[in-house]
């Protein structure tokens, strides 16, 4: 029997109604298909208003989808069975002002139906893990934003969920804290937990996520590993070659006649020549042509596009059809 995916979203649509008599309709999600495998760290990327929060709310059952279906760990999204097995760290988390870390963990543990004994033992362990040991009896309202975020992470882990949905987990954390969270996520992956990460910090996603989905304007623009996404957006974002050349300007200009290129004059009669090369043979051909035209090749750099560039391209590129590379 096949194990159900951690998250399975099928043609999910969500419309919000607004205005006088709800006459204006806003399509927050327009038929999203997404599958997150068990045990992977999955990142969800998208600009503000892309529909990321709406998708998470649908997964948690906080809002209902207009059409389509979603399930978590084989149970319908929003069902009590599904919520029993997930840990959630919301964005802009706030705790009641009368809570200490211990009392907060006690309450959320009880809400997750964890026994008192486990709450007691796990609380100390988790507070140690997130770096709040020794400050567990202070009122949460005196905590910094980063400390509250750590406490939020602790509560999400308290009942040992199979799936963690983390909404901006490193928000408000210093670089050390972010690094710790990344290590924690990696550790969770090693424990076989599934992590669904929603973050604006692309480098972070690139560092910890096995796979990434890009959501824009309620549609999924791409899903895959960072490398797959780069490949997916190959046409727009192939390797870029930058060279320092010495020689006649006319000869240099003729190197890529008919192709996109940039030419920049450097001191001492040097020129910086930049162009795109989709394959290695294309670069080899370019080097051969430089030699043929007696141009001196002083330096050659080859760069690949970052996830940020892929993200920006995907968000802006309407031509890419979602789902085509979905694995």
């Amino acid at each position: 029997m096949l194990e159900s995916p951690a998250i399975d979203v099928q043609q999910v649509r969500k419309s919000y109604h607004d205005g006088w008599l709800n006459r204006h309709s806003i399509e927050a999600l327009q038929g999203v298909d997404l599958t997150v495998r068990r045990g992977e760290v999955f990142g969800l990327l998208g600009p503000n208003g892309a529909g990321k929060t709406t998708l998470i709310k649908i997964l948690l059952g906080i809002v209902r989808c207009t059409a389509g279906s979603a399930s978590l760990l084989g149970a319908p999204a929003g069902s009590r069975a599904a919520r029993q097995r997930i840990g959630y760290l919301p964005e802009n988390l706030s705790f009641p002002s009368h809570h200490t870390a211990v009392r907060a963990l006690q309450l959320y543990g009880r809400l997750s139906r964890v026994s008192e004994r486990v709450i007691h033992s796990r609380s100390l362990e988790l507070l140690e893990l997130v770096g709040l040991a020794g400050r567990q009896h202070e009122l949460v309202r005196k905590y910094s934003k980063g400390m509250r975020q750590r406490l939020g992470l602790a509560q999400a882990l308290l009942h040992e969920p199979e799936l963690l949905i983390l909404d901006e987990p490193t928000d408000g954390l210093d670089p050390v804290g972010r690094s710790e969270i990344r290590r924690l996520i990696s550790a969770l992956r090693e424990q076989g937990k599934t992590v669904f990460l929603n973050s604006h910090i692309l480098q972070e996603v690139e560092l910890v996520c096995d796979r990434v989905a890009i959501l824009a304007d309620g549609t999924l623009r791409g899903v895959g590993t960072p490398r797959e996404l780069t490949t997916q957006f190959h046409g727009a974002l192939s390797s870029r070659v930058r060279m320092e050349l010495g020689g006649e300007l006319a000869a240099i200009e003729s190197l890529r006649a008919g192709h996109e290129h940039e030419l920049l004059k450097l001191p001492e009669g040097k020129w910086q020549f930049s162009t795109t090369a989709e394959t290695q043979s294309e670069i080899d051909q370019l080097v051969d042509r430089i030699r043929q035209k007696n141009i001196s090749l002083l330096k050659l750099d080859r760069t690949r596009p970052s996830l940020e560039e892929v993200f920006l391209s995907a968000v802006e590129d309407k031509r890419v059809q979602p789902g085509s590379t979905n694995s």
Partner: protein
Amino acid sequence: MNPYLAILIDSFWEAVGNRVLWALLLGWSLVLIGLAPFGYVTERSYRLTSSDIDNRGQLISRLAKGSRDQGRLAIVAVAKLLDESFVERLRQAEDSDKSQSRNPITSSELAEQLNQVLSSEELYTPEAFPTAKARDRLLPLIESAERRKLDENEAEELNRELLQQAFPLELSSPRGEHLWIGYAGFKIGDPLPASRRQIRQFIEPVLLAGIIKFGLGILAVFVAIVVTSPMIPDTFSSGALHLLLSKPISRVWLYLAKFFGGCIFVLVNITFVLIGLYFIAGLRFDVWNLGLLACIPILMFVFVIFYSVSALVGLIWGNAIVCVVACMLFWLFCFSLGVMHDAIGPQVEVMPQISRIRTIEGHLMTVDQRGRLGVWNEQFSIWQPAINDEQQRQARTFGPIYNSERRLILTKSFFRDPFGGLHAKNRRLAIIHLAEDEVSDESAGDLSQQKSKLASDAPMSIKQARETPVWLADAGPDLPPELFDVVSLGETVIAVCRSGLFRLDFNRLDLVAVGQKGLFGFQLPISMLSAFDNIAPPDYFLGGNTRAAATRAGDGLIVFSSGNLDHLAFDGSRLSIVNSGKLDGDGTEATLLAMNEKFCVVARDGKPLQILDARLQPLSELTLPNKQQVRQMDWIPDSSDLAVLTHTGHLWRLDCQGAMLSPLAAPLSGRITSLLWKNDHELWLGVKPNRVVQFNLASSQVVADHSPRATTLENVYRWLIKPFYIINPKPAALDTAMSYALTGNKTQSLSLVTVDLEAAQMQVDLWTPIVTNSIFVIVVLGFSCWYVARKEY
């Protein structure tokens, strides 16, 4: 642990962590600490205070006369013991009083002077106080005085009793104990002019209920609403809510748990205050009233009503200020509706209630709670006013007393102040002459022909009929002052007054009428205008709140006054004491009496029914179910049983022989306001609001139903205001539940102090407010739950 229980516990900690709670508890603690030193201060004392002087002017006059050796020997004896300078002032005061100038002697000064007399050993002489030895209580004191063996306290007691004999109308009866409200043992002001029982009667329904209704029911609930209003909006704001909703719990139960969690705040406050009040009232005033603790859930219910509105508004608008404003608007709406209902309700439901039914020469006559004497008008089906006697407030009407020999009806109305005192513009009896022809001879010469006439021609419309009296009543003689009761003793009328028992001399009625108009242009002396003669035994004076009734045979009176019960026989000219008895209690209780050849039945406010034998010796006591208060008693014809009507509108048959109470089968039970036995199987019943039903006990059928047409105000109230009021929430109506919890009475007197058991009492409607408010809360919470379940956050 159950997650919802966890939310409740968390709400408790939230309340504990709230500074406002601690500030409020501190405030309440200061209030309770401030209240705790209040209490009674009692002293055994016969000394007089200014409140004991009932009639200052008359007392000054009598003492002044006594100082001139005028008047009774007892007064002369007292006057001789006063300071000479004071005597001089008394004389001056009396002279200046005659010339209408200001009287400079105050009640306090009078009391002070009379208190000097209390320590004298020379006041008592057999000549001055010839009847004193007849009093069982005074005899040993007088014997000791004669042997010069009285100590200071005994001398004070004896002299106070002698002073009372000398000035029975001018001084209040001695209680032997002075009662003050004290603070930390220090007396505040003068001694209270009331007994502990009366003070307790005031403390429970007025003082405690006032503190609870206004201090907690309004002020504390409003503060609680302000403090708890952010709880629901805060919980259902996105930052905290998304995390809560991600947990495996129901949204609806989450909402309900937070809602009831918010109530913990109020529960802590209310419990603290009421437990504090319970102990203060118990320890300081000896009022151990568990009803105070029963008010905790009632007050919580009041809060829940408002909080349900606040929580719903908080869910929808998510703003605490809007919650508070919405609650205030809701309170204003409920308050306005309640005021409208409470203002009109008694006018429509209580005041028209029939308290007495009489059938006189074919006229069906009734007295309602306003004291209006009504005559049934068959043509328009209304109670037409018998005479022109406007009474808008609750009143006590004596009569109608019918004299068949002279074919006249006597009546007189007084209105009551909140403390039960009777007042009227004058004390003249109203006399209706039921003449065959309506000729009224205005000439003074032909007295025998003087008759009342019909007020006007037959009214043409129902409106006219409602406003036009049937008869023009003649002004009769003045009733004696300080009247307690008017009793019909066969064909004789007895006015029961503080100064004695006065018989109306019908033969002098016409003379009085002439005297009032003047004869041949001359005014007759005032003494000739009185038609009442005191036929009481010598030195027979009555104390406060006296009640009397004629014996069933019409041959005597039974009188209850200051705890003493006297049976007086009437020999055709005078009344004489046959038997006397003393009842427990302080003697200030409102009382109803009934006596036949074998038994005397006494119903007193807050006491069980007492059955005594003909010698006024106690036989047995019976308690009516559910602490029902007696409203009327009437002997059942051809039977030794007594019909007892309660303020809850139920009829009981009291078997005096077997000392048993059994329900008396009658129609419209629970709505009966008065009764009149026509014979052993025919009964007239006054039924709420103002119907009279003639019921045949043998056939168990209603023979006649006199149900008057409703006025416009009554229709508006019955078909518009009342239904709207019933279906709407009414938190303030839960006050009745609190009053019930505090007093245990299902009916409440409309006066501050109950002095007349026959006066209509408001029936405490416990369940309508509880049911309608519960429905309201359920509907509001149900809508809130539906909203929470559907809302996408």
